[in-house]
């Protein structure tokens, strides 16, 4: 049933090869286009609080990294409103988020938030990056104090 494997005229072979090369070019062009539009639509810019404060663009997607200023954290469980300030020592940016603070988040600690500049003076966060690192970092001495305090004050209420 299969056509016999006889040597084909060079012209036929080269015509066929042109077809495959053209097909390859079309695929490569389509991929390049998809990657280009993908990048332009989902690019997120990393900024520090001073960089953002210097030239904020409303609606642009940012990843803002800084330290959560001590005393700035406010968490309202009833409404799920989370507010805090991110600072890099030079400038600070007020951030608002909807949802419970994630596990690795807290005052005086580094955090990266993703979201947009709202235009009315605050950064609207849609995602707080909780970094799960496999490499374990030693806690500063005496930090187990918080753990002991929890054990002392937790009362719970079993049903």
């Amino acid at each position: 049933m299969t056509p016999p494997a006889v040597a084909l005229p060079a012209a036929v072979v080269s015509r066929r090869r042109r077809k495959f090369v053209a097909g390859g070019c079309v695929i490569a062009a389509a991929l390049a286009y998809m990657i280009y539009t993908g990048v332009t639509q989902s690019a997120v810019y990393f900024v520090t609080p001073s960089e953002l404060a210097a030239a904020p663009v409303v609606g642009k997607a940012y990843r803002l990294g800084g330290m959560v200023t001590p005393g700035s954290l406010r968490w309202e469980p009833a409404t799920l409103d989370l507010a805090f300030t991110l600072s890099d020592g030079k400038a600070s940016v007020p951030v608002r988020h909807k949802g419970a603070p994630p596990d690795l988040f807290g005052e005086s600690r580094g955090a990266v938030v993703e979201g947009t500049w709202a235009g009315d003076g605050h950064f609207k966060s849609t995602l707080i990056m909780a970094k799960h690192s496999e490499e374990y970092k030693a806690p500063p001495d005496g930090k187990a104090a918080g753990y002991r305090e929890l054990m002392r004050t937790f009362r719970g209420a079993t049903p």
Partner: protein
Amino acid sequence: VIPEIGYGALIAALLLALYGSGAAAVGARRGRSTLVESAQHAALGVFALLSGCLALLAYAFLTFDFSVRYVASNTNLGTPFYYRLTAVWGALEGSIILWAWMLALYTLIAMLRHRRRARELYPWVLSVMLAVLAFFLLVMTIPAPPFQRLSPVPADGRGLNPLLEDSGMITHPVALYLGFTGFTVPFAFAMAALITGRAGDAWLTATRRWTIIAWYFLSLGLLIGGWWSYHVLGWGGYWAWDPVENAAFMPWLTGTALLHSVMIQERRRMLRLWNLALVIATFALTLFGTFLTRSGVIASVHAFSQGSIGAFFLSFLALVLLAALGLLAWRWDALKADGELDSVVSRESAFLLNNVLLVAAAFTVFFGTVFPLLSEALRGVKVSVGAPFFNQVNVPLFLALIFLMGVGPLIAWRRASPANLKRNFLGPIALGIAAAAVFRLVGVRPVLAVLALALSVFVAATIAVDFGRATRARRRHGEPFLRAMVGLVLRHNRRYGGFVVHLGILVIAVGVTGSQAWSLQTETTLRRGEAADLGGYRVRFEGLAGREESNHFKVEGTFAVARNGTQLTLRPAKKFYPQEQSPIAYVDYRLGLREDVYLVLGDFARDGTQATVKVQINRLVSWIWIGGAILTLGALIAVLPERRKPA
């Protein structure tokens, strides 16, 4: 004394590996079999020494020997027995030992299998594998020493990262590394073929089962990783396009391409250069993945200079690529294809397109992963592309691949006649279109979901067509149905193992589609006795309880979940470790074929009066794990020894 013994053993293993690699190469060039035998003894010695090191490290963990820095950093007196064992490969240094040990094991098995059969290639295979081993041993003696001494010896260690206290962490790295290291064997054969100039098809025949084995373990590793992410990390997802995941996914994509393209070379003597390039790329990507995830380069280009391990991996990667591409160029003339592509509508074309798409997907993942590094290095601004980028580019590629999965195995070689196309595809295409209409009618709205499901039906139908036809042929010879089926699968185990893998992929595709299209989630704060509603479920907060476990304090919420009269209780919790600054979420869930109910405890009041909880209804996710089981089963069938007599 454990640090000194371990360090000494590693140095000895490094010297042996270097000697063995050299001896095998010289033995091959001069034709001196005594040298090759001596290299075999060296390889045996390396394996024995590495086994000893692994056992020694495990012993240090079990006996809490905190004079070893790595033990002190990854365990403490409260770490339970099993997790002390898995902590052996819980961090960088130990995972490199495990990696090297597996590589030594593969070297040993390759030695036993190919010592007699592949006489010309074998010495070079041994040489290349020992050279790769020597690199990993070098890494263990300089930038990532597992046996570094810690003094003064602390009274207690720091403890294992709590996220790794999970059974998935026992198996995930083992499977993943068996996959990564497994691709070293085909790479070594490819190098041997290029060095000896026997760049024909012998190396391919010798390695095709090795490739399936490596692919099997890599797939298993990816699946267990997804499961771990789903049930431990507490964000309700199984895949995040995280660099760590991408690092394992890229070699999987090129390895998958390789599994398909070798069939073209076997059958039509084409794509020789392409196959060698795929083997080299796959091996290079396993090294690149380790570089990416272990050098800190992802966090910032500048973190790269802080540790030397990144420099080691990058240098070795450059060396490997340079040597491999140099050899390719040197043997260019020997790599010409005997066969020619005859027609665009043929099995060769379908496989070629499959390869192009898989490599395109690998490139996309590569590009998206290194994009932040490129933009930081070239433009000084750090720009990243997240999950939307990967999904946007990859989803069309994957849909096209699913379509080809239906076409490739059935379309005729060389040139498909209209009759062949009609006989194989008319039924499945009609069924696919009908399925699309039905899905539309029953209310499946997202276009991509309809497309993915209809394509899956089409592919499943093509598999049924082929399987039905072949089974009928055997039944005509009087075999009963079941025996005909099993006999068929076992006799043509590569082909039908492949079909089973394809079925697994389809089931996974259905699970991914369902979870992306129809999952629901909400986050809310509940007072005791209050309830929230989602997707027909009513979740009521009943209370909080705290208790001390061996190495942490656990605060557990009790939630009553009710739907249509059925009731269950879920207890998501937060675990507090004394050595950790922040708690670790412990999710609770009920898995189901239709949907999973998945609860994450967010925040709570210490007097137990209220709790913030995230409720997710994750649709069809279980099918991902079921499909994964089918896929790995198919790979196992494909790896069985070929029973078919050569035609």
